[in-house]
């Protein structure tokens, strides 16, 4: 291939026919998304650590090596900067690499390649070179992981202009958003909540949900907006259920996209309920919730009845498995925080 234009890759017009609905985990939905994208577009290649015959440590790439062979699915040397750096070269040559950083904290050696090149290449070259790379990062905790296996690194990426950062919270979104991410001409940091890999849903593939860049109201309510993403959507929904016992009607928003941020959807909800809290696992200081609270306040100050709260991990390194229950936001902790507002 000598051209780099987005028109040279085959579009998803040959998506496989709809298959019968079947219960499917998020890991299986991600697997299906990669497979279908590879069937539709011969320029999609997959590589990373253990993604070949093993099928990835979370089995997200299970069976793909056998189906597509070494030229399209390959194990790389164990070097994350090398994975991202070579993906950049492949993308310049017209491929659409899907690469895996095995665990959140293992993406840090690739920080320079992601921040200095993946994020900036399109702008540096005035749009002449684009890098349609998907960087899959299993992230966050609640799986009893040892140190360096439970980080929530989303704020690093979301604060970097040039990156698109998304995170699904359920199997249907996992499939749909990963298909959209692979088809995107922008580089996408695709953050997969590890604790949700084994969550199941009945899916008829190829399922398509709301556009990747949009937030979705996943439960309607009138009194409070809980803003969650990835692993904390489940927590927020459990909180909303629990709150009904107290007569509190909670609306839950699944952000899905951290960059861009869907101001319209979230602001509309906050203007309706007049109270909002952001829930994430990552530490609070300088975290993603700070951006959410700040921009919602700037845009909706006169609609608010109370300050926007952040209910997050503490400002400490992610703890050992036996202590993570104290770290993670829980429905009880969230409801207690909402109770600190003055309710008139």
């Amino acid at each position, binding site marked *: 291939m000598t051209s780099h234009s987005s028109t040279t890759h085959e579009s998803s017009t040959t998506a496989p026919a709809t298959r019968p609905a079947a219960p499917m985990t998020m890991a299986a939905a991600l697997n299906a998304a990669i497979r279908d994208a590879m069937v539709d577009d011969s320029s999609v290649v997959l590589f990373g650590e253990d993604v070949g015959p093993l099928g990835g440590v979370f089995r997200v790439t299970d069976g793909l090596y056998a189906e597509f062979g070494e030229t399209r699915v390959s194990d790389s040397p164990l070097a994350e900067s*090398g994975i991202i750096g*070579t993906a*950049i070269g*492949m993308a310049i040559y017209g491929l659409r690499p899907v690469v895996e950083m095995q665990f959140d904290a293992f993406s840090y050696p690739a920080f320079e390649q992601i921040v*200095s090149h993946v994020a900036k290449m*399109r*702008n540096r070259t005035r749009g002449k070179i684009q890098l349609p790379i998907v960087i899959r990062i299993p992230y966050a905790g609640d799986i009893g992981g040892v140190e360096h296996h439970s980080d929530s690194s989303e704020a690093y990426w979301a604060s970097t202009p040039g990156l698109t950062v998304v995170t699904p919270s359920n199997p249907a979104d996992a499939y749909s958003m990963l298909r959209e991410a692979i088809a995107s001409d922008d580089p996408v940091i695709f953050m997969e909540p590890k604790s949700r890999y084994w969550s199941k849903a009945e899916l008829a593939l190829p399922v398509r949900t709301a556009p990747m*860049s949009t937030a979705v109201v996943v439960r309607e309510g009138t009194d409070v907006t809980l803003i969650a993403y990835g692993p904390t959507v489940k927590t927020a929904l459990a909180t909303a259920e629990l709150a009904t016992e107290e007569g509190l009607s909670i609306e839950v928003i699944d952000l899905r996209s951290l960059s861009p941020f869907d101001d319209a959807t979230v602001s509309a909800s906050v203007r309706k309920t007049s109270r909002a809290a952001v829930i994430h696992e990552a530490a609070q200081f300088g975290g993603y919730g700070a951006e959410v609270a700040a921009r919602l306040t700037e845009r909706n100050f006169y609609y608010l009845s109370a300050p926007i709260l952040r209910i997050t991990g503490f400002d400490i390194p992610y703890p050992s498995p036996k202590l993570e229950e104290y770290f993670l936001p829980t429905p009880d902790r969230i409801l207690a925080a909402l109770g600190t507002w003055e309710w008139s």
Partner: protein
Amino acid sequence: MPHDYVMSLNVESAPVLTQAAPTPLRLIDDAGRAVDPSEAGGFALPAPDILLGLYRRMVVARRFDVQVTALTRQGRLATYPSALGQEACEIAAVASLRTDDWLFPTYRDSIALLTRGVPPEDILASFRGEWHSGYDYYQHKIAPQATPLATQALHAVGLATASKLKGDHTVALTLLGDGATSEGDAHEAFNFAAVWQAPVVFLVQNNQFAISVPLDKQMACRTIADKAIGYGMPGYFVDGNDVAAMYAVVSAAVDTARNGGGPSLIEGLTYRMEAHTNSDDPTRYRDSSDVEVWRGRDPIERLEKYLVSVGVLTDGERAGITREAEELAAATRECMTKTAVIDPLELFEHVYATPRTALAEQRDFLANEIAEHEAAAAKTTGETA
């Protein structure tokens, strides 16, 4: 490709890390004489017409480099990292590539861009501070000049691997400096290339300084080329001021890569004659006597002596080359008189392929701010008129 000049430590015995550095491969010596073929490492001296072409391109490139350095000293460019004295490495690299091969350069390799056909005004766009990079990458098959050290070596390996996966015969060549070989990305690039047998050539221009830090503070081994053995690829230690040797070795490495033989690491031993950039002061860290020694090993003068001795470089040829170089220098000065007008609103245009509402809002904010300033300035002008 001849392998008897491959540098390798004998793994059968304990490597002696203190052993003296070998003599770099050369085909034409400092005095401009062809070396005896028995000392040429199996490489043949390129034909006279090829050498004359390399000479012409080196002279033209140096004239450009000197011109741009002068413009920088006049304060007309934000910065310019000169490659003065490194012309043999730069021109040999470009001359060894086909038009559909790819070059992955650094900020110091502007004359490689020039030699590959990038117009002066496009090369200077970044140094003029207009945009971070300013040429047609796909037309010239040249990646943006990389500033973060050694990062581009991985991009070259990736592109070469993609070429191989597609069954193409495109080769990637990346230029690196000696300091860059200390970076992790250099190591990862060498390793990925060797494991994947990528059609890539790593050309390290060992100009002996990383800004101020000399090579013996970068590494403890004899040569950079020696490192190749650790990755499982051939390494070549070459006189980087002998364009004949550089061209012979780089061309052979490019052919090897194209024919499925995998990557090579080439070290060209040279010297950075100028400061790191115009904001550097080399008198703080090196003796001018060293610079004079290397001035005596000038790559252009050496080849000139040889070409004159074999009767290839005539007065007529020389006059033509001088004319070409001066015309380029004039064109380079001329392009500085044209003021590139870049719409500040373009700042928002290329960040994403997919439009963003928030960025559109910020673009509109800036547009309004500019309009208000212009209106206020017009009002002031009107009042004072």
